[in-house]
């Protein structure tokens, strides 16, 4: 069933809200009252509810099935968290109320900070970053601020080739040159290549650990010692913290800062692309440079520092105090799991990924030998000479009722397929998924490339022309543009 755009459903004189007649007042809008209509369509509430309900039904979601996107940690999002964030006394707080009226909110932030610091073994945390990439900015800015504070202008940041694109983009956004480090044959940082890059102009290194190949960097302590020895800092990308939460404290590995995606490890909902939250834990060396605001505890209870009296804070990254709604959800999640449960989270995530890896090692081609952490990485060797690409293979999953895995990432592996089941999948669910992957792999090898090229067939839309979309971008509806009706 097609669902027309709201602009194609609107009629003048229709409205989905009832508002009282405004009191008659002498306008204070100066001569700047709006002159033309906005151009918004008029719909009634029943139409609106149906429109968005129908749209929702065109989406795949964790709630509808296993969501094996590697590097994204698509785990169950508890509904308790949604209930908590909507509590009166939290949802209805204005960010600029007197601090005397928001003591509970500040305490909540302080509690969450305590959990994050304890789980990472780090002494400080900057709460305000709005997402993972924003947290990266925060961390690299703190590093640069610390270096500047000691009068040490450095210009390079080392980034492994397997890193998320946000890593190099962040380094560049902080004014650094990006210097790539190759991966070794085992999918880890090439220690020798790394050491060769070190020098007095290296500000730091950004390493994802567990890395994007789903592997723990065994030389992590050596890397930390080496970068520190060279006068630089160690940024850890915490995107994959889920694999080790409660079981390994990054602080014990010698890192200086790490962002934490609350929407990955701590289950705040992905929401179709956001919002996220990316608090950054910091070492003693970096802590003084954390951006405002800071929640502190003083004689009169909790307080907010919105301007650093010592002027060491590197500035401000975000309006107000960070993603409070995500803080509430994450704290509810942490309290629900507890320290025992969080450890189990990591273990089950790793166990599930290894179960998939082990179960499919003969039918698909693992990118690296041995076990993995929380995600299983395959390359496209098993598709060699079948005429089936990684993309085709992944799209065929859709017709089996699954969202595709992450494809062509990390870049260090040819035709990568990165599968992250998370800890919230049952063994039954994994068994069914494994069976589907196995039979697709066998089908590919049996020479049925046309089937894969044509997939998916059972979706609201089949493969879309992305090239045409980019060549002549149509980014908004304009009146009379309904090409859909014509096409059908």
């Amino acid at each position, binding site marked *: 069933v097609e669902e027309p755009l709201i602009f194609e459903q609107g009629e003048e004189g229709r409205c*989905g809200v009832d*508002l009282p007649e*405004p*009191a008659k007042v002498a306008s*204070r809008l100066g001569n700047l009252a*709006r*002159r*033309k209509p906005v*151009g918004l369509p*008029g719909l009634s509430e029943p139409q609106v509810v149906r429109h*968005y309900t129908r749209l*929702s*039904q*065109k*989406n*795949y*979601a964790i*709630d509808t099935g296993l*969501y094996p996107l590697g590097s994204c940690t698509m785990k169950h999002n508890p509904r308790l968290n949604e209930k908590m964030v909507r509590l009166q*006394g*939290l949802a*209805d707080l204005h960010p600029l*109320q007197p601090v*005397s*009226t*928001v003591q*509970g909110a500040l305490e909540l932030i302080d509690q969450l900070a305590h959990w994050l610091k304890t789980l990472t073994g780090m002494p400080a945390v900057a709460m305000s970053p*709005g997402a993972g*990439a*924003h947290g990266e900015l925060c961390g690299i800015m703190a590093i640069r601020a610390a270096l500047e504070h000691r009068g040490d202008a450095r210009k390079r940041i080392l980034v492994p080739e397997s890193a998320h*694109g946000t890593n190099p983009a962040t380094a*560049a956004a902080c004014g650094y040159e990006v210097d790539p480090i190759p991966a070794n044959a085992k999918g880890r940082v090439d220690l020798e290549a790394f050491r060769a890059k070190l020098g007095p102009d290296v500000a730091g290194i950004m390493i994802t650990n567990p890395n994007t190949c789903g592997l*723990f960097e065994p030389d992590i*302590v050596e890397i930390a010692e080496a970068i520190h020895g060279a006068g630089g800092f160690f940024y850890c990308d915490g995107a994959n913290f889920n694999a080790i939460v409660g079981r390994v404290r990054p602080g014990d590995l010698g890192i200086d800062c790490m962002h934490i995606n609350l929407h990955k490890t701590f289950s705040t909902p*992905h*929401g*179709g692309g*956001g919002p996220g939250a990316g608090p950054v834990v910091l070492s003693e060396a970096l802590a003084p440079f954390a951006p405002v605001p800071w929640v502190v505890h003083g004689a009169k209870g909790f307080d907010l520092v919105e301007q650093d009296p010592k002027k060491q804070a590197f*500035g401000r*990254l*975000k*309006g107000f105090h*960070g993603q409070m*709604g*995500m803080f509430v959800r994450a704290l509810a999640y942490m*309290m*629900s799991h*507890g320290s025992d449960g969080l450890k189990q*989270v990591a273990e089950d995530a790793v166990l599930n990924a*290894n*179960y998939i890896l082990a179960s499919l090692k003969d039918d698909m081609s693992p990118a690296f030998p041995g076990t993995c952490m929380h995600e299983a990485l395959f390359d496209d060797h098993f598709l060699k000479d079948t005429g089936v690409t990684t993309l085709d293979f992944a799209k065929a999953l859709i017709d089996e009722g699954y969202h595709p895995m992450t494809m062509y990432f990390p870049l260090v592996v040819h035709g990568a397929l990165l599968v992250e089941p998370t800890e*919230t999948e049952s063994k039954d669910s994994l068994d069914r998924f494994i069976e589907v992957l196995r039979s697709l792999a066998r089908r590919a090898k049996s020479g049925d490339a046309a089937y894969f090229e044509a997939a998916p067939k059972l*979706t609201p839309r089949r493969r*879309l*022309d992305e090239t*045409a*979309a*980019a060549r002549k*971008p149509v*980014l908004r509806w304009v009146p009379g543009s309904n090409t859909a009706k014509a096409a059908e």
Partner: protein
Amino acid sequence: MRYLPLTPADRQSMLARIGVRSMDDLYRDVPPKARRDKPVDLPSHQGELEVERAIGALAAKNLGTAKAPSFLGAGAYRHHVPAAVDHLIQRGEFLTSYTPYQPEVTQGTLEYLFEFQTQVALLTGMEVANASMYDGGTACAEAVMMANRVTRRSKAVLSGALHPHYAEITRTHAHFLGFKVEQPPADPEGKEDLARLVDADTSCVVVQNPNVFGHIQDLSGLAEACHKAGALLVVAVTEVVSLGAIEPPGAMGADIVVAEGQALGNSLGFGGPYVGLFATREKFLRQMPGRLVGETKDVDGRRGWVLTLSTREQHIRREKATSNICTNSGLCALAFTIHLTLLGEAGFQRLAALNHAAACMLADKLATLPGVSVLTRSFFNEFTVKLPKPAGPVVEALAKRGILGGVPASRLWPNEKALENLLLVAATETNTGADMDALAAALKEVLA
């Protein structure tokens, strides 16, 4: 543990399939000194009832705006959100879905983002809009960085009446990227002349409308001055409902419009998550930050939507990306677009009119109090009053009386003695006449 489906028996059989004896074997790459056998020193798992009690107790320590007459604005506004909005955004298919990188199974998200982009473009009077940013403040900084790219210049002029958080975020990026920022002091009277700061190195002028003191300004002259000097005009809007009543920035010559979208669909939530709006002219499209949804066709020729122009983005472009941004504010954008769809043209304009009427009535009421004067000549739903004494302690005294009476300017400019007696006061459709009377009475008492 309620969120973990594996049973002890499952774990045993899975370890066997993997061919290891214990979980420890799977963590063997972790350096021995960092391996932990025992849980960290934090409380153990708790049931829902216990967690609800604990978080409920924290909530009970706050004075929420639902319980107190509240007149706070300065970048975050309390509006009534129809129940359908929250109902719909909680549908699991929206809530628990990822970024729509696989368009065949995410047409729902893509279609509403396309509608959102269209609505943002219409509201701001611009040609194109992206699929949302973290919030208004970060969008403002991104706009400046974009203007730098577009003009290949490196000085931004910021209005002194730009929300201080927006300015601070922009200055933070300026420091690390090495571009210059000029900003005159905050002028509550609305008389600053920014055009005189524009020079050949100026990439953009950033001005907020209505500004942080509430003033509505005609920006046409400034736009002209910018364009003459080869600079862009960036307009920031912190109260998006104002666009139902006043001329949109696009109509006054803006090149980039950024806005905080919280006021539609989203709760105050102590400051986040919110949703940044970002709109510009079509010709600057490829310099935009953030995600974009575009229309296309599928192999059967049917209209559909995809994420597009991702060659601007970090996951393709890495260090050459237009921004490091990855996450958008999808669910908040959904709330925004549903609320605005419910309102439609008639509802949106009426909502704006109700807000304006409420603010006018409140301004008139406060102006009658001894020693209180309203500084803002033309405003939408927020204005600045000058009190006979520092506003900070006055607001604390009002809070003790159960009234959230506005934002003292000293909260935003703690070190500006000249602004110390100023109070920013907002009124929306949620404020009753009784609320306003309560504020006036309490203020009179506190000032007496």
